[in-house]
Each structure stands twice: as structure tokens, then as C-alpha cells.
């Protein structure tokens, strides 16, 4: 199999760890958008990267860091879009202006840029759309026409539609039809790919739930388009030391390795992530033999 993508390159700057103040807080539908006064993180951030928060304050029973994609990084501030889910993200979403939080970032590999002017489709699911804001801006600055597809289960779980609207043509889908067209982002994407002439889309980027990433990546690959997806795999540290966040990813040598989502990703070539094998140990992963897994 020849690959449509090259592995994303490391970010230009190493991360820093800082205790920062929450300088803004805004409920957005089902989410909370937090702005953090974190100049050293903001100035290092490239689109696609994320930060990792310590949660619960000094009395916390929750040790592990929570990873959140960076939605915006400008003017010394970093913006994130938090969906309250379990205890950690609920605590984050409850932070108030003036509270402080320990954050590490920017982390992970940014989205690779296409050659200038390449038309791009960005697909964001739920709060994942927020993580595409920086990328959309950078693509536009490089002369790329950008179409963004924002999808969610319902209207209150959409994010960044307005912000992306300033940079791109935006298509909105919701599962329940409460906003935009009823259906999934992949329906909209399939339609888009068939309706446009070849060459009108040169690259696909996605951020969102794993099932969506899989569908988007498969659609792009089938259409012969390179795609880059920012995965969301369970992480304990975010900085590459715990090995909990691995996915089976095909390397440049064609061999599959358990790669860390935090330091080898979160951005991977959509055709490199073996989505169907996530959660299993395929025999052809490097080192599977030492685990007693034999070729069928």
C-alpha cells in the first residue's frame, strides 16, 4: 500500500508547564469555553496541538492529566472548549475567571500544511470543530480555499461555527436536525467530494470522535485524498512518558507500531491509523511476536 500521507512532523517548540489564570469563561451550548492567560504556551502553539491540565486542585484524588485541544492561541491567551464528561472535565468546566490551573503545553504534533493554495476540507465533530480554528486561519493565510463541515448530535453540541464562518465556507450537520442539515458530517463530506470537480479538494483535516475520524479518513482515502486526523485516545500524561495512549499506526517503512497519540500524534495520516484494529493487538504490529501473538 502506498500512503497518501507522511507522518506529521514534531512541533517547532518544546512544551512548557505553567500555573495560569483563567481570564475568560463563556458557556457555549453544552460546552464551556475557557481562556487562559498563558503567553508562553500561546506563542509556541501550532494548529492541532493540545494542552494537558492537572485537575481538582490541591485536594484532588485525580492524578492524571486531562488533554484538551487548543482552539485558539493569540495575544498571550490560550482558548479551549471543554465538554463536561467525567470528574476531571467537569471540574475544568467549573473553573471561574481568576481561578488558577496547572497546564502543560503546547503538546503533540501539529497538522502538516499542504502546499500553498491547496483547497482543504476541515471536518469537526462536536467540540472537535473548535480545534480546527487555528488550522483554518493558517490555511487561509497560505491561500487555501477552506470548506469546514461542523457536525454534532444536536445544535447545543456544535462548536465554533461562527468563528470558522469568518474563515471558511461552513456546512453544518446535526444528527437530530436541530441545526443545519440533518445527518452526519460524512454524508455532507461525501456529497461535497462528489459534487466538486477533481482538484477542488486537495486535502482533508478532521478532529472529533474516533468513529467520525475513521469514517472521514476512509472517505478521503477512497477518494484518493490525503487526510490528517487529530485522534482522541485515552491519555494519562500527555507528554509521552506513560505509554497508555497508543494506537496501531503504519509508519513510513510500512510497518505498524503502537504509536503514542500524545507525542507521535495526536495528528496522524488518516490512512495510517488502523482504526479497525484499535483495542486489539494485530500480529503484524512491531513486537507483537514477543507478546506471543503469531502470524495467522
Amino acid at each position, binding site marked *: 500500500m502506498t500512503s497518501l500521507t507522511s507522518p506529521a512532523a514534531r512541533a517547532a517548540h518544546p512544551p512548557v*508547564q505553567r500555573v495560569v489564570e483563567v481570564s475568560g469563561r463563556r458557556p457555549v451550548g453544552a460546552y464551556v469555553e475557557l481562556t487562559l492567560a498563558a503567553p508562553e504556551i500561546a506563542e509556541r502553539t501550532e494548529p492541532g496541538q493540545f494542552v494537558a491540565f492537572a485537575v481538582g486542585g490541591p485536594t484532588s484524588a485525580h*492524578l492524571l492529566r486531562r488533554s484538551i485541544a487548543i482552539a485558539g492561541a493569540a495575544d498571550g491567551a490560550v482558548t479551549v472548549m471543554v465538554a463536561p464528561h467525567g470528574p476531571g472535565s467537569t471540574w475544568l468546566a467549573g473553573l471561574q475567571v481568576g481561578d488558577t490551573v496547572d497546564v502543560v503545553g503546547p503538546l503533540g504534533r501539529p497538522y502538516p500544511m499542504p502546499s500553498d493554495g491547496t483547497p482543504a476540507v476541515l471536518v469537526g465533530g462536536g467540540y472537535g470543530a473548535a480545534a480546527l480554528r487555528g488550522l483554518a486561519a493558517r490555511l487561509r493565510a497560505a491561500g487555501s480555499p477552506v470548506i469546514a463541515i461542523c457536525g454534532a448530535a444536536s445544535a447545543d453540541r456544535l462548536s465554533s461555527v461562527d468563528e470558522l464562518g469568518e474563515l471558511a465556507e461552513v456546512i453544518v450537520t446535526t444528527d437530530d436536525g436541530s441545526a443545519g442539515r440533518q445527518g452526519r458530517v460524512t454524508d455532507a463530506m461525501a456529497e461535497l467530494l462528489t459534487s466538486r470537480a477533481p482538484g477542488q479538494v486537495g486535502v482533508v483535516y478532521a478532529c472529533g470522535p474516533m468513529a467520525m475520524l475513521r469514517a472521514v479518513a476512509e472517505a478521503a482515502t477512497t477518494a484518493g485524498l490525503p487526510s490528517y486526523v487529530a485522534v482522541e485516545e485515552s491519555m494519562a*500524561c500527555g507528554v509521552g512518558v*506513560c505509554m*497508555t495512549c497508543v494506537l496501531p499506526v503504519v509508519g513510513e517503512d510500512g510497518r505498524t507500531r503502537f504509536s503514542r497519540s500524545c507525542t507521535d500524534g495526536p495528528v496522524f495520516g488518516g490512512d495510517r491509523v488502523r482504526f479497525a484494529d484499535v483495542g486489539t493487538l494485530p500480529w503484524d504490529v512491531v*513486537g507483537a511476536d514477543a*507478546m506471543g501473538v503469531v502470524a495467522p
Partner: protein
Amino acid sequence: MTALDTAVDMSTALGAAPIPSPVLTASGCSANGAELEPFVDLTAIGAVVTKSVQLWPRSGRPTPRMAETPSGMLNSIGLQGPGIDGLLADDLPWLADRGVRAFVSIAGTRVEDFAALAERLRGVPGVLGLEVNISCPNVESRGEVFACDPVAASDVVSAVRAVADPAQPVYAKLSPDVTDIVGVARAVSAAGADGLSMINTLLGLVIDPDTMRPVLGGVTGGLSGPAIRPVALRCVWQVHQAMPEVPILGMGGIRSGLDALQFVLAGASAVSVGTAVFNDPSAVARVHDELAVALAERGFASLRDAVGYAHR
């Protein structure tokens, strides 16, 4: 890590190998060191204890590999790693080039595996010593963990000590999941261990309330973090009480300088910081600094004076 202006002499040793700081990483909790470079001056810490290496590259287990638990976590990584060739080719030279001390953790499923690894690590630049991770299933004994059987544990340690570089101290890493940890400690010391690392994780399990099955594919996993600190301290206390002359590298839930102090007072002459690094990537350096301050505040002129002080 900034040199602190406490007059306390923080130097200590792993066996006969001197180190300038008593605070080390813990095997498997800081990869092979490089990822911590943005956060910690790796040359100033006691040593990087590398992720347990085996003879061959290992993929490790499928995900999910962890579950968060109250003040701790459960993991089942399955010793993912590049194998000894990869370690010798990439990781150890990287550390040696920068002057970072490496304490290399080795693992295997047969006594010969451990010995072969020790052999390969003889005279390798920057390798301060070996930590023998005997919390591995012994394929020759129906998968019983070496560390749970004093005889199997001693077999590994004596095989390693026999072939290892004489300049490299050999520490045996004990499991708390035994009825009599002092018995295991005595056995491995008699077999030639220059010191003891304690403790490895406790065997635990978490069930996912949604799938209604164990979270981890491997069913059980290793429990670590502050939750287990009292158990770790008890093990260090008991073993130091029984064998005050045997050096102990203490670990299990250390998160602050005062936590490290407890281990030192209980009898550890050095400590590893493991899971806390996931919470705070600068933890190893911070714990060193906090420990130095805590010792100074208590009037200790040197770390060595505090080792085992709680037994007075």
C-alpha cells in the same frame, strides 16, 4: 532543577555507585528520559531509571491500558519497548551524550533472559547499574511471578549478579503482593543483590460500569500512585528493620518532598518518583528540592543522616 541554597549534602549512592541526588525516575513512568527534558535538568537528578527492557522489541498490550483510580491508577502496558538492541542503539547513547546517569531496568520471562540482558549491558557508557524487574511472569513456573517466590527471585538475581559488570550495582525490585516481603528481601540479598527497589505496583482490577467487564484487556493491572504509599512505606520499614545494612531505593506514591522524606526516614537511601510524573512532569526535580528543604528544616546536615531515622 535549580541548585538550592540549603546546606544539606544530598549525595547518596546506589550500592557503590555515587549519585548527587537521591531522587530518581521510576521504571516505566518516564519512558527513557528524553520526554522529560523540557521539564527537568536530567543531569541533576539521581538517575533515569529506564523502562524495563527485554531481549526483543515488544508491542505491549492492546488498549485500554489504564484506568484512573482514587489517588492512583491501574496500568497494563505490557512492557512495550524497543528491546535491548534499540535501547543500546538509541536511548542509552542519547542519555550518555548528555551526561545523564541511567539505571537500567531489565525484565524477562526466564532466568537466562535476565542474565543475557545483564551481559549486554556490561561496560555500557552511562549505565550506572541495573534494576531487576522480577515482577514478571515466570514461563517456567506456570506464569507465577518471580517476585512472589523467594527461590525464583533469587535465581534471577544470582544469575544477573554473576554476569553483570562488577562496577554496576544490581538492585532487585520487589513486589508487595506477598505474604512475607522480608523473606523475599532476605533471599535476594543472599543471592547477591546490592540493593532493593521497592515497591512495584499492587495487583488490582477495575470494572467498567458501562461494558460491565474489566477495563483492562489483561483483566488485572498494576496499581500505583499515592493510594499505595502507606503499603510501600510499610514494606520499606519492615525490610530496613530486618536488614538495616541493605540499601533501599524506595518508591510507591511519592509526590512531594515530604512523601520522599517519609521513605528516607523509613530506611530508603534513594527514591523513585513514578506515577506523580504523569500529574507533574517536573515532579522529580521538585521532589528533590522539597526534600532538600525538608531536611534542612529538620536540621539534617546530610541526606545520609536521615536514612532510617524513624527507627531510632
